[in-house]
């Protein structure tokens, strides 16, 4: 379970020491709230630059927010970052692998950093290799991996400690149709009782993706949570039959209200 309340983050724009005028700070996240429950897939949906990546980076402890609270299974991510991160699997924007290590070694490195024993790490790697269809890749160096192979390895690495909460930033970026489909199946499985009933949060700007996968949608625009609910509920609220129309209306109306 992940709870985000009143998140705000302002970045000081990179200024040059030679110029007098200080550049205007950028408000990346203004007021984002959401609650992601266990056993459900929650999608952060928003246009580019809405603050999705910054929000997820704050959840992952990479950025300290100016205001607001993040709790992971009740643990404050700001006050006890290690405890929160131990219950979190993150597939962020950067998903670089170590090219001179094999896929297995890449996964084992993160297992060791999470404090897993060698035996436990090996068992988890086997289980993940089956779930993600990685077996053929395990003992190859990641140097020449395709996008899909990279993504699978990075996902296995993020899930090696069997976290009850999973955060994914634009997970389908750069994936072809079969890879996207298999990822969708994996995530569905992880959220189901058979897969452990995990709490899954993902960000996307692809409408169909969210519509097909997410139980709950949080619409984010200009750094604010504009609306949240299931796809059907959002359509009903806006009186649109098509989810895309509903989304445009939510974001557009919000802009009008803000102006």
């Amino acid at each position, binding site marked *: 379970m992940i709870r985000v309340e009143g998140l705000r983050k302002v970045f000081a724009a990179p200024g040059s020491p030679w110029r007098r005028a200080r550049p205007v700070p950028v408000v990346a996240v203004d007021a984002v709230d959401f609650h992601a429950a266990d056993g459900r897939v929650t999608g952060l949906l928003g246009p580019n630059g809405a603050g999705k990546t910054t929000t997820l980076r704050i959840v992952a402890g990479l950025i300290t927010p100016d205001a607001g609270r993040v709790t992971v299974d009740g643990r404050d991510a700001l006050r006890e970052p290690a405890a929160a991160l131990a219950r979190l699997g993150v597939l962020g924007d950067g998903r670089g692998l170590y090219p001179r290590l094999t896929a297995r070694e890449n996964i084992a*490195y993160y297992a060791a950093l999470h404090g897993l024993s060698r035996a436990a790490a090996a068992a988890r790697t086997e289980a993940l290799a089956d779930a993600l269809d990685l077996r053929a890749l395990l003992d190859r160096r990641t140097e020449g991996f395709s996008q899909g192979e990279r993504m699978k390895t990075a996902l296995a690495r993020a899930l090696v400690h069997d976290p009850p909460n999973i955060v994914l930033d634009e997970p389908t970026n750069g994936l072809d149709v079969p890879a996207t489909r298999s990822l969708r199946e994996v995530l569905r499985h992880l959220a189901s009782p058979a897969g452990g009933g995990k709490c899954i949060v993902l960000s996307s700007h692809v409408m169909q993706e969210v519509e097909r996968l997410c139980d709950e949608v949080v619409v984010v625009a200009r750094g604010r949570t504009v609306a949240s609910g299931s796809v059907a509920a959002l359509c009903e609220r806006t009186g649109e039959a098509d989810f895309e129309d509903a989304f445009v209306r939510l974001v557009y109306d919000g802009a009008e209200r803000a102006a």
Partner: protein
Amino acid sequence: MRALLAGAAVVLRKELIDALRDRRTLLVVLLSSVAVGPLVLVLLSGLVAQIEERADQRVVVATGLEHAPTLRNYLERQSVEIREAPADHEAQLKRGRFGDPVLKVEPGFEAALARGEMPAVAIVSDSSNRRAEAGSGRLAQWLAGFASEQASLALALRGVPTALLRPIDVEHHDLASTRSRAAQFTGMLPFFVLMAVLYGALNAALDTTAGERERGSLEPLLTNPASPLALVLGKWGAVAALGMGVALLSVASFLPAQALIRSETLRSLFVFGPAEALAFLALLAPLAAALSALMMAVAIRSKSFKEAQASTTVVILAASLLPLVTLFEQGGEQPWYLWVPALAQATLMNRVLRGEPLGAVDIAQPLLLSALLAALCLAYLARRLRAAAVR
């Protein structure tokens, strides 16, 4: 604290494996920093041996010596071998083909000498020809000896004591120990081992910082529960270990290199045994640790490996040029040398080569300085890591 060390140990292990798999870089480092030092030493010893050989040769190459039987007689009494100079010796000397100075005697020398008319002889050499120059000093000495013998004989014939010719007696006392004389040749050794340390650590220092940023692997790394300080400590440990490893190989390579030194004198003068090697390592290990941290701190600011290479060049340049200060400073060793990293180590390594003992303060001072530098850089790295990951 325990979690910190456990996390650091995991990172250390992974970074070492990663760096050791980079075979091509390792090979280049080994060739450039470990093999070059001994190679230069051996080549230099060859040159020294050649100069020594020539200085020991009792050979005079002359032209027109048939006009000076007295001089010839004197030279033969000094058991000097006399050779006739080739006709084009001037051109050959100029081009560096000919390695001996030529004694030139004009016709009528003998008669002029008998009449006391100060006949001239010439030593033909080229001051840009090092081999010939080494021999011309020796030739001048023989000629001075001949002149002084002639003068003594003339005075003795007139009943004047020869002591009048030499009112003072000059004795030469050389204070240099045999080892400090050798240090003239081995003074560049510290430069080579310093370069070895730098290049040994460089690639890993860039790969673990700017390289991680470029690959996009720093961001996921920071979503592990291990603290940034643990990650930095582990990375630094691996980089420093590589620097020290290359330093160890580089220092150790001078041990067998000694056997290859061609000059007898240089070999007997150049003492580099296990004790000297240990002293070198004791000086280099803290420096490797500090410079690794410094290079990492500089590299973490760069988004890509290439950019980081450009900015760390400044560190490398400073660390390799600072020891050269000793060459420009004519006033000998200055106290402030020991307060400058790299320069301090080079100064102390030269002391070891001269066979001077190292005091506890001499070792502690650069050690403390290195520890301080490393601590500062590591604190900066740990603070900077998160911001570097997401930007």
